[in-house]
């Protein structure tokens, strides 16, 4: 696929504590698609998400990140967000005394009660029961993840990075999350799913496989699924890819 990418990553290198956590990554994310980045624990997936978003501990990278064709390397997280990208954390933050409603409205495109009701229903949380609760430790892990997703639906972003949207989520809620994905896509968002679950990968239109901070292969979901199932799941040397890992980006 060679449509115009909404997000482009060029030769991204990120070193932390003397190690290359991201190792010369180049990736293109076509508009209006659901992309998945899959890989084992410690592959660098969350780090990639944080670098794209421009979080303060992840901004000292080499290479370049382009959003809508323009480099965003100099921009802090809030300015990147105002250009239309956002992210849902693997482990979302909790806030004492901040209501679910205020949290959702903090970035909402349309700031109304109606928005809060709609997005909570979309993630399967009853607005009457949840709107007034605090986004604090009294929410379960799965509820907290769903509130995070609701806040993102309210933003109507151009690009959403979702770090492990299925972690801590039961089957019922997972179906809601997949519906929300479809909704985002139908409403013009580009989605970047970060996962090590094949079930999540299968929701994507296009996939990338990462290992040890490197891009191992990219392409159609079926190709990535097969590669992951055959080579990664039985792998006895995670995050030590062979030097001849062969299939690189693009060769579908």
């Amino acid at each position, binding site marked *: 696929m060679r449509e115009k990418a909404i997000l482009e990553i060029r030769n991204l290198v990120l070193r932390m504590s003397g190690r290359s956590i991201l190792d010369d990554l180049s990736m293109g994310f076509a508009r209006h698609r659901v992309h998945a980045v899959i890989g084992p624990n410690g592959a660098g997936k969350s780090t990639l998400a944080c670098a794209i978003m421009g979080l303060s501990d992840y901004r000292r990278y080499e290479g370049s990140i382009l959003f809508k064709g323009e480099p965003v390397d100099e921009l802090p997280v809030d300015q990147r967000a105002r250009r239309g990208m956002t992210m849902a954390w693997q482990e979302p*933050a909790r806030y*004492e005394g901040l209501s679910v409603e205020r949290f959702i409205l903090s970035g909402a495109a349309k700031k109304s009660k109606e928005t809060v009701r709609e997005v909570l229903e979309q993630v399967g949380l009853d607005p009457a029961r949840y709107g007034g*609760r605090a986004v604090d430790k009294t929410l379960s892990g799965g509820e907290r993840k769903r509130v995070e997703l609701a806040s993102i639906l309210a933003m109507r972003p151009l690009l959403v990075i979702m770090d492990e949207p299925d972690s801590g989520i039961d089957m019922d809620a997972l179906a809601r999350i997949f519906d929300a994905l479809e909704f985002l896509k139908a409403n013009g968002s580009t989605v970047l799913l970060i996962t090590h679950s094949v079930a999540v990968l299968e929701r994507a239109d296009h996939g990338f496989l990462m290992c040890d901070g490197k891009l191992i292969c990219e392409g159609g979901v079926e190709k990535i699924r097969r590669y992951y199932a055959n080579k990664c799941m039985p792998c006895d040397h995670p995050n030590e890819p062979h030097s001849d890992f062969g299939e690189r980006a693009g060769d579908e």
Partner: protein
Amino acid sequence: MSDEHGEMIRRLYASIGEACVIEPNVAHVEVHGNRVLGLHLVDGLKVEADETDDGISARVRVEPGRVIETPVRICFGLLPERGVQRIKMDVDIAEGGRVAVLASCTFPNAVQILHTMDADIRVGKDAQYLYLERHVHGKSGGVTIVPKARVILEEGARFRTDFELIRGLVGDIDIDYHAVCGPRSVLEMAARVSGAGDDRIKIREEATLEGEAARGVLTTNVAVRERARAEIFNTLLATAPYARGHVDCKEIIQGEAQARATPIVDVRHPKAHVTHEAAIGSVDSKQLETLMAHGLTEEEATELIIEGLLSPSL
């Protein structure tokens, strides 16, 4: 009620952005300086107030088994720039009685004001008392607030108190609460205060869980910026079996502000259990960056986080 008193009451409520209480089922008391301007009671609630040289001395009683359905409104205040207001309160919630009080303390024009509160509170067997104190101060912070309370919770009693400063600068604040908790009683003490400028905040909350299965939570959330200073001393002593307690202290500091917390957890029975949590520092970066990823600036995100921390528990 004289017209003059009526006008004064209106101005007190106006300074906290509210209208006067008029519903006949809501008990209310309004005190300006040492003058009791308004006093309206409901069945089961007794209040006697004497005016002293620089304040009032009041006795509040809820009669046995009486449940006061609607929260009682109390408004203390001083509208001039300077003055002293000393409040002495004796509160007795008799066995099985229940009441909630919303007290507003307003010093909107304060330049040099001293407000003290000296309370003795007894919450009887299986009785409940909820006391929320909200402060509105002036922009110059010229207020010294010294609230002291001694609380006794009898068997099965519940007491919750929340202290909040919602508008204006603190000035100097020196809170000192002490509670003794009997069997199966439940205590929740919370103070939420923000300071700026040259504010000085000192909060001391102490409780002894001396009855079997008594429970207590002491919460202090403070946000200080500029040159403000905060010092928190929370002590929870548990001496009885199955007593459960938690001390929670969160302080956000910005600019040149300084904060210190001294949580003391003292357990003297092997079947008691008390925990504590203290966090002092700048705003948590993940909390901040989550909101910034929603498009808020760092300042807007910080403000929202602090506002949550200082708002009463949802």
